[in-house]
């Protein structure tokens, strides 16, 4: 009874925190998704891969933090290092994604004047998996909230299960992203998504580097 109450709480926490998770993952998910082929099935598979990898990121972080006894309060130095590396890696993956999206488009487009790209090159799961895993490692406020509650549980297994249910609650908010599959993929959409990815990558890269260099972001 107590167990189901705890997991009900995890689900409620996930549902309540979902918009924040969605906003937090949006800069990574939306442009990368727009460079994929159109179609609900393709986009569903992409989001499933992304979320699955994100889930692994959650669990990995929770398990390691539990073992280190630092689920709630990760010390500043390793936290800056971890998130610095995560942000720089995210920037790297986004840049690679932007590059590879252009490459696959170049193969598929018959000419620059072609408006609809019907058959962009099929891409593997490595991209969404890498992006999902890295976003899963970030210590966003909902994750901290779940961490606080999970830390009160008796075992690492219970904590991981708590995170799993919490993850299900947040993931429901990602379902609308599947709708991006209905957006026609043409040269304009793919170019906009690629350019946006580069800008976002530059920002994440900057954030990561400042963290790695141990500088305060605003210094105030």
């Amino acid at each position, binding site marked *: 009874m107590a167990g189901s109450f705890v997991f009900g709480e995890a689900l409620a926490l996930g549902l309540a925190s979902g*918009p924040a998770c969605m*906003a*937090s*993952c*949006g*800069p990574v998910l*939306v*442009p990368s998704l727009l460079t994929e082929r159109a179609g609900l099935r393709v986009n569903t598979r992409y989001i499933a891969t992304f979320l699955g990898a994100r889930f692994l990121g959650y669990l990995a972080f929770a398990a390691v933090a539990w073992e280190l006894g630092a689920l709630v309060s990760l010390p500043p130095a390793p936290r800056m290092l971890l998130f610095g590396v995560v942000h720089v890696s995210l920037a790297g993956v986004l840049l690679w994604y932007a590059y590879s999206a252009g490459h696959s488009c170049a193969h598929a487009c018959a000419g*620059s*004047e072609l408006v609809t790209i019907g058959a962009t090159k099929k891409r593997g799961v490595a991209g969404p998996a890498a992006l999902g895993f890295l976003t899963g490692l970030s210590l966003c406020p909902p994750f901290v909230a779940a961490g606080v509650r999970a830390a009160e549980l008796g075992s690492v297994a219970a904590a991981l299960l708590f995170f799993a249910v919490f993850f299900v609650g947040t993931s429901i908010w990602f379902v609308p992203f599947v709708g991006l599959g209905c957006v026609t993929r043409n*040269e*304009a959409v793919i*170019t*906009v*998504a*690629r*350019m*946006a*990815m*580069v*800008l*976002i990558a530059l*920002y994440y890269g*900057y954030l990561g580097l*400042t963290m790695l260099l141990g*500088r*305060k*972001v*605003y*210094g*105030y």
Partner: protein
Amino acid sequence: MATEARVLRAQEMAPRSISRSILLSLPIALWSVLMFAHFWQHDRAVQIADVTTAVFMIALFFMMMRTRSTYRWRRWFFVVLGLLFPVGFIHQVIAMRGTMGIPIEEMIAGRTPFCFLPIPLLILPAAFTKTVVFPGSILPGGGMSGGGMAAMAGIWLAMTIVVGKGWCSYACFFGGIEEGMASVPTRAKVRKIDPRWRYGPWAVLLAMVLLSLALFDSVYCMWLCPFKAVSEYVAARNTVGMIQNGIFVVLFAGLVIALPLLTKKRTQCAFFCPFGAFQSIFNKTSVFDVKIDRTRCSPCVLCKTACPTLSLTDESIVRGETLMSCMKCGACVDACPKDAAVWHIKGTEVAMKPERARLMFLYAAWAMAIMFGGGTIAEGVATILHVFV
């Protein structure tokens, strides 16, 4: 029949008589008097500035009527607006704060002057949290912002519905500097521009909307606004502040000064401005647009060359229309030797009384220009006059 139509068209394109031009300018003159007659103002410099601005705006409109040309007269207004905005604004900021740099305390207190550029970037955070993440205030006593944010958003929305992206050519106080720069060289040194750069504003918009939602911060204002270089910058108290200001200066020097000089295009507007991309959507709500009359068009592509924002392509000319990014500046209409590029009211036949369509658009756009840009010009002139009067 065709000859008759040609004669009618020729009559329509000939310069207007002075008396008729005056008559057509009267509504604008009346509007100018309403906007600039500040009888309660006893400051002589302000009075002179108001009169000068009113005369300037009426004279330009009169010339538009007389010559039937839009772009070259509008450009005078726009460049003057672009140059005088920083004069009045910087003076005001320095009078209020003693510096162009905004310290974080001022931002937290919501005393940042509101600007329309981040409006599209703040919509999602506002929808999710009912919070405007721009560090300004709509509350009375919120410093310089006061009710400015609400007023600016309201005026912008009303005008935008009518003129669409015409806002970017008749109201925006940022575009004038680059338009001025673009008009300096007689010929463009860089003529071949990859058309995919046209998607730049949409990419910046997408990235900024997503990052603003993720970080609950006005990311564009903090990191990418080129016009911080001539308005207000982040008080550089540390390395990050220096980097931010460095980015502002580099973007301004590149997009607003150097590239317009090299390309004769409004490069910041055409390739970067996220507000412009957002504004493009409202070209769908506006009843006014620019069309290419295919029956008159010989494919000289002078209109395409003249367009400062690459809003005409070979394909769009074939389709007889401009792209969604058209700012309705009138450059293509003025450049067309065959009068094939015409002002148009949606729902009417193309080239059916284009001058009437132009007049109707110009009344709306120029009224907006006087209200929004005219006030800014008058403020800039008054600031300069305060030095002498």
